[in-house]
């Protein structure tokens, strides 16, 4: 039996209270709203630390704790409690969400200082934190679903925070609609699980897996994968992430780099018992991850918008995680490790991008940057640490986590292992290329600034969080992997079976990865450091560049395959509705009213007629009863 706790709920309640207070108090809280929101997020982080310390002091099988909040749905034998589950996996997310969240709250105090709606921004941030915590703390798929929809809402509100610009409002709508497809997947998964297993709690489903047939598990697995694809911007539903950069940069750092977009990885890791029993679904997970990691990396090479380049990189890095999570029990822990390190370095780089934009009048085009190293030394150093981390240069964080993924991919066995190994290696090389490109275009070379631009370093409230994240980028990999600490921490949750067929020894894999990275960096240097950068993106470029600039045609594909036929379908449906259904409805309506009008005539106002009705009614009643009796 799992231990009960009564304090898990505070993790969620604190930021939720912040959102409620700020939204209800309205303008009255303009002066102190941001401070309250930051304080509440930080307190949630400390509750998380406290829970972690409690967890450390318990033997490993007693570490998970649960809390029942209230009976949510109770219909006959079907009961769902609103309950929370805090185990080794969710505590990792809790600390990531609240830790990075708090830093980004602090950063936003300064970043949003001149925005008239700063309070509303902080209310939404707190709402997001609460929803995201519910997502990772829910003890059943249904509770997770509530958080899942909650983060979707918060993401929508924050992407469209500056919705006075139509393009931004459209971007938030696009993100929301594409996420709906994923959400449908999750709800189908829940329905299938309920229909076949009769339960939707994690524990219940895990117990029921053995008695469930493989096709059903595959179905659930594929639906969960669809959900993950939507939320984590994986192929083929990745197109929204680039547009989501319309939101304020702290949002991109928190939601679209460190936390929400990793929910898909959480979902797959949490559902390990389903995927382990459904190899087909698991294979699909790997394929989706592999395609996306290449896809994102290729898009990243062609983007001139610094945030979109980082977004493409996020897509690609999450592709790594999904791929690794699809490799089964050996991969889950490494996927989570990369998720955590990525949370540090990607959030740090996004904040760095925000800092650059802050100093450059919100310019996002890297072709108009250049030589910012001197103007923004702190931003340069922190961004640079994140850069070293994502490349996987030892001893920075990415080296540990990404190498593990590449290694695991090679060890997957057979031709699958070789293909995946090569894909992940290539991905690492391309990552090195486009990240170096970002570094060169932004921080080195000659200034290509607008006349009005006066680059300057950001205030301490902004660089402090960047510095903290940079330290994380530098050290987290070592801390998490030394002595296999994260793997051991998580191992009780995953079924472990020791199958170890090493294709390549680790040292060779690391060497290969470093070689690929070196090649990527070298190409980028040759291409961008040696010659002048055009201030406007050149037009006469190869077809590949053009395709990459257009997000590998994904939007056009969506348009041709989904949007146009969808519009045609709705048009036909509207017509059918207007002619056939409405026609029928109107005919029924006319008939009904005609009936009413003719019946109305009996109400002629004469008492004698009314009395006659009563008499006839009485006679009819007697006759009727007589008939019944006979």
């Amino acid at each position, binding site marked *: 039996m799992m231990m009960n706790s009564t304090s898990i709920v505070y993790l969620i309640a604190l930021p939720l209270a912040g959102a409620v207070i700020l939204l209800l108090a309205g303008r009255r809280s303009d002066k102190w709203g941001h401070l309250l929101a930051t304080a509440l997020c930080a307190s949630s982080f400390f509750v998380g630390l406290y829970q972690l310390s409690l967890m450390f002091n318990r033997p490993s099988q007693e570490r998970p704790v649960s809390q029942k909040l209230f009976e949510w749905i109770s219909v006959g034998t079907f009961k769902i409690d609103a309950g929370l589950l805090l185990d080794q996996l969710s505590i990792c997310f809790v600390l990531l969400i609240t830790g990075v969240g708090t830093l980004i709250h602090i950063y936003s105090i300064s970043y949003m200082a001149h925005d008239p709606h700063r309070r509303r921004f902080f209310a939404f941030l707190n709402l997001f934190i609460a929803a995201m915590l519910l997502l990772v703390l829910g003890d059943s798929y249904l509770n997770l679903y509530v958080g899942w929809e909650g983060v979707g809402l918060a993401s929508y509100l924050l992407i469209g925070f500056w919705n006075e610009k139509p393009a931004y409002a459209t971007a938030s709508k696009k993100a929301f609609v594409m996420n709906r497809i994923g959400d449908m997947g999750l709800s189908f998964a829940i329905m299938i699980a309920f229909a076949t297993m009769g339960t939707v709690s994690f524990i219940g489903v895990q117990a029921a897996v053995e008695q469930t047939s493989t096709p059903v598990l595959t179905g659930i697995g594929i639906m969960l994968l669809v959900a993950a694809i939507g939320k984590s911007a994986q192929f083929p539903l990745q197109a929204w992430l680039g547009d989501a950069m319309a939101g304020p940069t702290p949002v991109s750092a928190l939601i679209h780099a460190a936390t929400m977009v990793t929910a898909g990885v959480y979902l797959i890791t949490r559902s390990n018992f389903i995927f382990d029993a459904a190899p087909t679904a698991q294979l699909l997970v790997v394929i989706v991850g592999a395609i996306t990691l290449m896809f994102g990396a290729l898009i990243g090479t062609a983007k001139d918008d610094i945030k979109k380049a980082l977004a493409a990189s996020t897509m690609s890095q999450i592709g790594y995680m999904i791929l690794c999570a699809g490799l089964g029990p050996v991969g889950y822990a490494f996927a989570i490790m990369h998720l955590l390190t990525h949370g540090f370095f990607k959030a740090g780089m996004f904040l760095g991008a925000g800092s650059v934009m802050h100093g450059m009048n919100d310019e996002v085009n890297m072709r108009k940057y250049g030589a910012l190293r001197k103007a923004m030394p702190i931003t340069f150093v922190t961004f640079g640490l994140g850069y070293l981390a994502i490349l996987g240069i030892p001893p920075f964080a990415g080296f540990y986590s990404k190498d593990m993924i590449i290694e695991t991919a090679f060890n997957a066995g057979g031709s699958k292992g070789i293909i995946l190994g090569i894909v992940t290696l290539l991905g690492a090389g391309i990552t090195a290329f486009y990240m170096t490109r970002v570094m060169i275009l932004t921080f080195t070379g000659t200034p290509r600034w607008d006349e009005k631009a006066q680059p300057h370093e950001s205030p301490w409230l902004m660089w402090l969080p960047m510095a903290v994240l940079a330290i994380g980028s530098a050290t987290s990999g070592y801390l998490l992997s030394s002595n296999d600490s994260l793997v051991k921490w998580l191992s009780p949750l995953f079924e472990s079976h020791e199958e170890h067929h090493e294709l390549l020894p680790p040292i060779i894999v690391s060497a290969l990865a470093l070689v690929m990275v070196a090649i990527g960096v070298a190409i980028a240097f040759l291409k961008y450091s040696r010659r002048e950068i055009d201030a406007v993106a050149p037009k006469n470029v190869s077809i590949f560049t053009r395709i990459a600039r257009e997000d590998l045609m994904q939007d056009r594909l969506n348009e041709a395959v989904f949007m146009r036929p969808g519009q045609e379908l709705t048009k036909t449906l509207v017509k059918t509705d207007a002619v056939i259904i409405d026609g029928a409805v109107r005919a029924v*309506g006319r008939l*009904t*009213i005609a*009936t*009413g*009008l003719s*019946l*109305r005539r*009996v*109400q002629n*106002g004469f*008492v004698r*007629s*009314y*009395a006659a*009705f*009563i008499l*006839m*009614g*009485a006679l*009819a*009643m*007697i006759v*009727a*009863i*007589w008939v*019944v*009796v006979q």
Partner: protein
Amino acid sequence: MSFISPTLDYTLLSPILILLGGALIGVLVEAFISKALRSTTQLTLTIGTLVLSLAQLWKIRNEQSMSAAMGSVVIDGPAILLQASILIIAILSILVIADTDQFTALAAALPGSEEERHSIRTGNQVTEVYPLTLFAISGMMLFPVATDLITLFVALEMLSLPLYLMAGLSRRRRLASQEAALKYFLLGSFSSAFFLFGMAYLYGYSASVTLAGIRESVVGGSGNDVLLLLGMAFLSIGLLFKVGAVPFHAWSPDVYQGAPTPITGFMAAATKVAAFGAMLRIYYTVFANAEWSWSPVISMIAIVTMLFGSFVALAQRDVKRMLAYSSIAHAGFLLSGVIALNKAGLDASIFYLFAYGVATVGAFAIVTLVRDSSGEVTDLNRWRGLGKRSPWVASAFAGFLLAFAGIPLTSGFIGKFSIFSAAYESGAKGVVFAGILSSAVAAFFYIRVIVLMFFTDPIQDGTSIEIPSVLTRFSIIFSILVTIALGVFPAPLLSFITTLATFIR
């Protein structure tokens, strides 16, 4: 022949006795208090009486007795619940009735006579409506608890006679009001005659006037079935007349339209509770034991009533007449609770009666607010765009209409759902089918009014919304809150009803 002195259980009878006492004092007040103080005194007295009665009822809520008055009155769970519903509805209605502008200054004066003008000019407003209401309420309270036919008949007349008078008290369109009163009186007497006739047959059948005695004969099956049959049919006609079931409904649209609107609301809500209460008791405790099934006949009436009410309501252009036909349709829905003849049917009927009654009082209270210079505006065409001019009032009215239509999150949905599911359980599938069909038809005309109020442009014809008096406002707000609360959290009241509502025999 020895004479047994009657023993009365005054505690159990006290809610009714308090009302009668209050009514009598009201008559004295009407005679002796100066006209300046009369209105206020009457209002205070009436509300005080009702609240006292309700408090007394709360005190005895767990008591049960077959012989509260020598076997003529029974106090049990359903009795308490029905009486409480009547009292709550009555209090809400009195708050609306308190707007004396609705009532004629001097009912005894001929319409348009010098005498009438004089009393309006001098402000000599008579307030006999308060004691009349209290008398009617005492009759309603007695009706569902009476256990012998004589008491039942006395209660029926006690509730009817004041209502006939009250229907004629309208200040404006007095002739229509008096016509309504007369029609109501004539047809009511006609149906009372049927009722009496039925009593005679039942006495002939069982040689007893008590429900217990009749039940014994029915269970024993010893008597002449023809007498039982005729007795049941005629007694039912009297009851069906009061609830406005087709074909005994014809009075209701005319009376609803002619009567002063606050009285219409009171009548539509409280009379239904009383009449259905009595009907439930008689059918559940006596007729349920009949060896042959009478339910096909009542089912037919239920189906015809629902469909007729809904269809004809579609064709109405007057809000009061529309609500009258809607109340006919609701009588049909409620009959399916009578047919169900199971515990769930009883519980659902009581819930439905309370929910419907509260919403009805609220809806008619709002009708009193929509006026022009010559009084209330009941022509629906002139309700256009009301939502734009008075969003709060129109929203409340929309809430009541949605409750009548049985839309979820209102008390009407819970009521309809529970009453139909009880009827379905008992096998009355045809009734449930007709009920759902007519609910669909009914939803159309309810929602049409909402569309009219909110989605059409206002017309400038001097129709305005009266600022409601504090009392009317309270009544409306309370009604809408109850309507919504019972739709969202019905469980407490439903379980309260379920634990209490069992007829003792």
